[in-house]
C-alpha cells in the first residue's frame, strides 16, 4: 500500500488511488453498498415528519457518523476502496438524484429539493470567485437578484421564452458584476468584501425603488413557467405508468443545470485557469512576476461566478412565478459563504452542504430560529479543523 494516509489534503500524489491491494469487484460492491445505504438513510430522513422521530433520527445519524469515523480509522482500506471508485460514486449519486422524485411522498418535498439545487448552483458560483480565485465576495445575492429580475422582466415585459431568458439572465448578471468588479478589484481582501457587500445593498435598493421597471415592493407577477416544445412545466410528469407531480419538472431542470455547472467547475478547476487562480490566491506578487495578468483572471472569476448566480435567479423566478425584493436578503450571501466553507471549497462538498442547509430548516421548524447559531458553530468547527484554505486542484 502506498503510505500516503498521513499526507494532508491534496498533497496526495497521483499514484495514491491506483494501487489499493483489494480486487476491483470488491471495491465496486463496497461503493454500491455504501451508496444504497446512504440513499436509504436520506429517503427515510426525508419521509419522517414527527419532531420526536426526527430528533431520534438525528441522534442515530450522529452515532452512525462516529461509528463510521472509527471504522474507517481502524480499516483505512475502506476509504481507499471508496476513493478508487470516485467516478462510480459520482455516477451513482446522480442516479440517486434522478430517482429521488419517485421516492418522495409529498410534492412539496420535491419543491424543497429543487430550491436546494438552486442554492447549490449559487454555492458553486460563489466557489469559483472565492474558492478558486480567492476573491472575497460578500454580496453574491446581488447576482441572484439581478438574474431573477432580468429573467422575469424579459419574460413578462418583452414576452421572451424561458429558454432565452435563462442564458440572458446569466449574461446580464455577469456583465453587471464586471461593471462593479472593474473598479472594485483595485482593492484587496476585506476591502473587496466591503465593496461587494455595498454593491449588493445598492442592487436591492435599486430594485426596490425603480418601481416603474421592477414593480418596487409589489414585485413582478405572472412569470411564465418554461414550456418545452409545447409541454407545460406546470402539468404533471407522466412516465409510463407513473405520474410525478409537476414539481418534478422543475426539479429535473434544476438538476440538469446543476450537473452542467458542476462539470464546468470541475473542468475549470483542473485546467490552467484553475491553476493560475490557485496561484493568485497563494501569492499575487509571484503570480504577476510569472507574466500573468491578474486583472483578467479576476474579471473571469467574477464574471463566471456571477453568471451562475444569474442562472440560479432565473430558475427561481420561473419556478415560483413571482419575485419581490424581500426574496433577496443580505443574510443569504452569508449563508452561501457558510455553505461554501462547510463544503470545504470542493464541488461535491458545496453541493452537499447547500442541499443539507436547505432541507434541514424545512425538516426541523424548531431549527429555523437557531439556523444562524448552528451555522456559526459548524463554521467554527470547519475553520478549526482546516484552518488553511484548500482547494481541489490536482497535480
Amino acid at each position: 500500500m502506498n503510505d500516503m494516509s498521513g499526507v494532508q489534503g491534496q498533497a496526495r500524489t497521483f499514484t495514491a488511488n491506483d494501487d489499493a491491494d483489494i480486487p476491483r469487484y470488491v471495491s465496486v460492491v463496497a461503493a454500491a453498498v455504501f451508496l444504497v445505504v446512504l440513499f436509504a438513510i436520506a429517503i427515510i430522513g426525508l419521509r419522517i415528519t414527527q419532531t420526536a422521530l426526527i430528533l431520534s433520527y438525528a441522534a442515530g445519524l450522529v452515532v452512525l457518523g462516529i461509528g463510521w469515523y472509527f471504522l474507517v480509522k481502524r480499516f483505512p482500506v475502506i476509504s481507499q476502496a471508496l476513493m478508487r471508485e470516485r467516478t462510480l460514486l459520482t455516477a451513482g449519486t446522480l442516479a440517486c438524484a434522478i430517482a429521488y422524485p419517485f421516492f418522495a411522498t409529498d410534492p412539496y418535498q420535491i419543491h424543497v429539493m429543487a430550491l436546494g439545487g438552486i442554492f447549490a448552483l449559487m454555492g458553486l458560483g460563489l466557489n469559483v470567485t472565492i474558492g478558486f480565485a480567492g476573491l472575497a465576495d460578500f454580496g453574491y445575492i446581488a447576482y441572484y437578484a439581478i438574474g431573477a429580475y432580468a429573467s422575469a422582466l424579459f419574460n413578462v415585459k418583452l414576452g421572451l421564452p424561458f429558454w432565452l431568458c435563462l442564458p440572458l439572465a446569466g449574461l446580464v448578471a455577469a456583465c453587471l458584476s464586471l461593471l462593479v468588479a472593474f473598479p472594485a478589484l483595485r482593492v484587496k481582501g476585506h476591502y473587496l468584501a466591503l465593496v461587494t457587500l455595498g454593491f449588493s445593498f445598492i442592487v436591492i435598493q435599486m430594485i426596490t425603488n425603480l418601481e416603474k421597471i421592477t414593480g418596487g415592493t409589489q414585485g413582478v407577477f405572472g412569470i411564465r413557467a418554461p414550456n418545452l416544445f409545447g409541454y407545460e412545466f406546470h402539468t404533471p410528469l407522466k412516465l409510463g405508468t407513473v405520474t410525478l407531480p409537476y414539481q418534478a419538472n422543475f426539479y429535473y431542470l434544476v438538476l440538469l443545470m446543476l450537473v452542467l455547472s458542476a462539470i464546468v467547475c470541475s473542468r475549470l478547476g483542473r485546467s490552467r485557469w484553475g491553476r493560475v487562480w490557485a496561484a493568485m490566491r497563494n501569492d499575487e506578487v509571484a503570480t504577476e512576476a510569472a507574466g500573468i495578468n491578474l486583472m483578467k483572471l479576476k474579471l473571469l472569476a467574477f464574471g463566471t461566478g456571477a453568471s451562475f448566480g444569474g442562472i440560479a435567479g432565473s430558475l427561481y423566478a420561473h419556478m415560483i412565478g413571482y419575485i419581490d425584493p424581500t426574496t433577496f436578503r443580505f443574510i443569504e450571501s452569508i449563508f452561501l459563504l457558510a455553505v461554501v466553507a462547510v463544503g470545504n471549497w470542493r464541488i461535491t462538498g458545496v453541493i452537499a452542504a447547500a442541499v443539507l442547509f436547505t432541507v434541514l430548516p424545512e425538516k426541523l421548524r424548531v431549527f429555523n430560529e437557531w439556523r444562524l447559531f448552528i451555522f456559526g458553530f459548524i463554521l467554527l468547527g470547519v475553520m478549526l479543523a482546516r484552518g488553511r484554505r484548500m482547494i481541489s486542484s490536482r497535480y
Partner: protein
Amino acid sequence: MPLLSVRSVSKNFTGVAALSDVSLDVEEGEIVGVIGPNGSGKTTLLNLITGIFPPSGGDILFQGGSLIGRKPHEIAQLGIGRTFQQIRLFEDMSILENVLVGMDFYLSIGYSATVLGLSRVREEEARGRNDALVVLGRVRSRFNETPGRAAAELPYADKRRLEIARALAIRPKLLLLDEPAAGMAPQEMRDLVADLRQLNADGTAVILVEHKMRLIEGVTNRVIVLDYGQKIAEGPFNTVKKDARVVEAYLGRGYVGAGAAAS
C-alpha cells in the same frame, strides 16, 4: 545596445532615498553581481526593474524600450524573470504546478475551450506538463522524481531551486536572482554555481544579488556595489574588493588599507 540599461534611477520612500542616481548596463549573456551591505538598495533595484513600484526618477530600458509605466506581468512577458529574497512559492501547489504557472503565458487554450471541454485542452495540458518537466531538469535537483510533491513540503534549498525553475519557465532573457544561495549548504551552492553557468551558456543574462562572496566570485563577470542607495564601485570582483570605498562600506573606516575585503 545593452540588454538592460538602468539610467540614473532614484527611488524615495516618503523622504527616505532608497536609491539615488544609480546607473548600470547588463549586456546579453552577462552575469552581473549586485552586492552591498543590508539596506543598501539591492532589492529595491530589482523591484524597480520588475515594475513592482515605479522609480521616482530616471529611466529603465530593456532591449531599447522603456519599462517605466509597464505592469509587472508585462515586464515578465517581455522576458525578465525573477526570484524573491523571501521565498514566494505557491505552497498549496505541487512542484510541477508551480512551474506550469510560470509557463502559463505560453499556453494557448482559451477560457471557453476549457468550459466546453474540447479535446485539445487535454492534449495541451499533457504537452505543458512535458515542457514543465524539461524546465525542472534545468536546475540540479530531484524534482523530476516527485513532480507531484507539494511545494510546502520541500526543504529550504529545494524551495529556492524551485523558484529559479519557475522563473526559467517564462523563458527569460534576463533573470534576476535575489539571494538564491541564502541558507544553502556548500554542496548545494556548488550545484547552484553549475546551474548558473549552464543557463548563462544557454544565453540567459543574470543579475545576481547575493551576500555569499564565493558565489559572486565564482560566476559573475562584473559586480556593482551599492551603499546607502548609491553605486560606489563597479568592475570585476577581484578589482572591486580592493576598492577603498567598498572596504569601508563593509568593514568601516578603520579597515581601509588593511587589504583583503569581503571574502
